């Protein structure tokens, strides 16, 4: 089975916006390695011809009519915002934005 590398852990941490120390990277690499090993038992099962499960409950087509329902008030919407301006959420500068 494939081994987890410390670089993979750093990459995933970066995608999840988690700051991890070198020590933590080592710890998580070992832990994730153990986890994957545990789950590797699943790979032993023969799943040939078995459709992947897309949802644990066997129901389809749960729909809602296209009819408007009340929204929240502006005050309610913004009540948990750390910062707002002109009835909009104020967020720090977005890195990676070219404009």
């Amino acid at each position, binding site marked *: 089975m494939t081994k987890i590398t410390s670089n993979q852990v750093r*990459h995933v941490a970066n*995608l999840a*916006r988690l700051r991890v120390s070198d020590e933590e990277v080592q710890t998580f690499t070992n832990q994730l390695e153990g986890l994957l090993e545990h789950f590797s038992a699943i790979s032993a099962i023969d799943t040939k011809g078995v459709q992947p499960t*897309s*949802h*644990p*409950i066997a*129901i*389809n*087509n*749960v*729909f*809602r*009519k*296209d*009819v*408007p*329902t*009340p*929204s*929240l*008030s*502006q005050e309610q*919407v*913004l009540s948990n915002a750390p910062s707002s*301006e*002109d*009835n*909009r*959420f*104020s*967020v*720090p*500068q*977005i*890195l*990676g*934005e*070219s*404009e």
Partner: protein
Amino acid sequence: MTITISKDTQFEAVIGLEVHVELSTATKLFCGCANDFGSDPNTNVCPVCMALPGSLPVLNERVVEFALRIGEALDFDVPTQSVFHRKNYFYPDMPKNFQTSQYDQPICMDGKLEIQTSEGTKVIRIERAHMEEDTGKSTHVGSSGRLHGADYSLVDYNRAGVPLMEIVSRPDISSSQEARAYVSELRAVLKSIDVSDVKMEEGSMRVDANVSVRPVGQEQLGIRAEIKNMNSLRSLGRAVDFEIARQIALVKSGEPVIQETRHWDENAGKTSSMRSKEEANDYRYFPEPDLVPVVPTDDMREMVHSSMPELPAQKRTRLVDDWNISDSDARTLVSNPELYEFVQVAVSIGGTDIAKDATSFAIIEVAGELNEKGLAIDVAPITSENLAQVCTLVANAELSRNQAKTLLGYLVDRGGVVSSLVQELGLKQVSDTGALEAIVDEVLAQYSDDVAQWADADEGKRKKLQGFFMGKCMAQSKGQGNPQIFNSLIESKLGN
């Protein structure tokens, strides 16, 4: 095989288009908030589209219906089952930190669209179309002249969760003209099936272009760049042309084309590199556990199938066949539903015999004039009844085409009753052969010197003379004489 590049190497462009269309439903994709453009900020927002803890999405059935309509109109396969996935990325325009989209099981697969190119009809294959939610709208606030030191953004989530269909073409497009033709035809189709208002300028239709170039004859594709921010057909054409030229220049000078997202700047007329939202596009898609699969039933498919309206291509073929009009006139009518309606009503009054005249008068005299005035046809003084009556007078030779144009000019301006305007303006065409013959005799007698030249004149000279006599006859009849009758009278009197 890679082809060695020299300064004479010919290049071809390979273009695929990703089109996002906002669906014109009453509510959002997964909640009952209004799908309404232009509301006050953050007024169409609820716990579901804000992803507050404990809230659960429920799919809007109308979105599925619209998706099936798109499937039908673009000749897609609609697989038995389709599934939603979470596309994970951190960006403040999505309050959930993921976008609910579709990944490997989209609702529509393998469609196609026919476009007209300079070389004839071309089929553009469409890889897929899938349902997903739109993001919120960020306004970026610059630092210059602001009290707050740092730059920041303001986010309005009214648009977050609005239903979109993303329609992804195969890289079958090879020029900016074809790209425009594809988007224009796609827009016409989507409009005709009434799933979106497809306005590029307002962002309800957004087009991203994947562009690459390669030497002619090379099988392997070049590295592509994705171009964003074109908000009209014109800017799409310009951006694609710019990008093709940029990449060819790079390849010719031996520099690499970088796979990246580039931003089209309409004013500067060029594309520039954009740092991407998520490096390496690692979106970690996984099945959305809060939504169950969509399995379009036979009933749903049948309902959509039986309610499909006539598509633009079918409509154009019908008009060309039944109305005997040109393909280009048919195109004009089909892309202007109001103008089509105007002509259609006239034809239903006057019969298909007048359809050709009605179309050409409507496009040139009526729409042309209204465009100059900036007036919409449905509020203009002229009516379809007017157009039908004028065309019938022309068909019965009671009005010449020029008189018809004069009359239509009046009707476009101030409307009125055709029969009284004909009287008032003295526009009645005279087709009484006796009366016209008297005029021809008079003219020929008056210009006997010119008549004398007829016998020895060559064909060109005769044409000129005939035109001259014709002009005199028309003037003599104050423009009311039937030109066809004048012509045959002049010809028979001059002989061979």
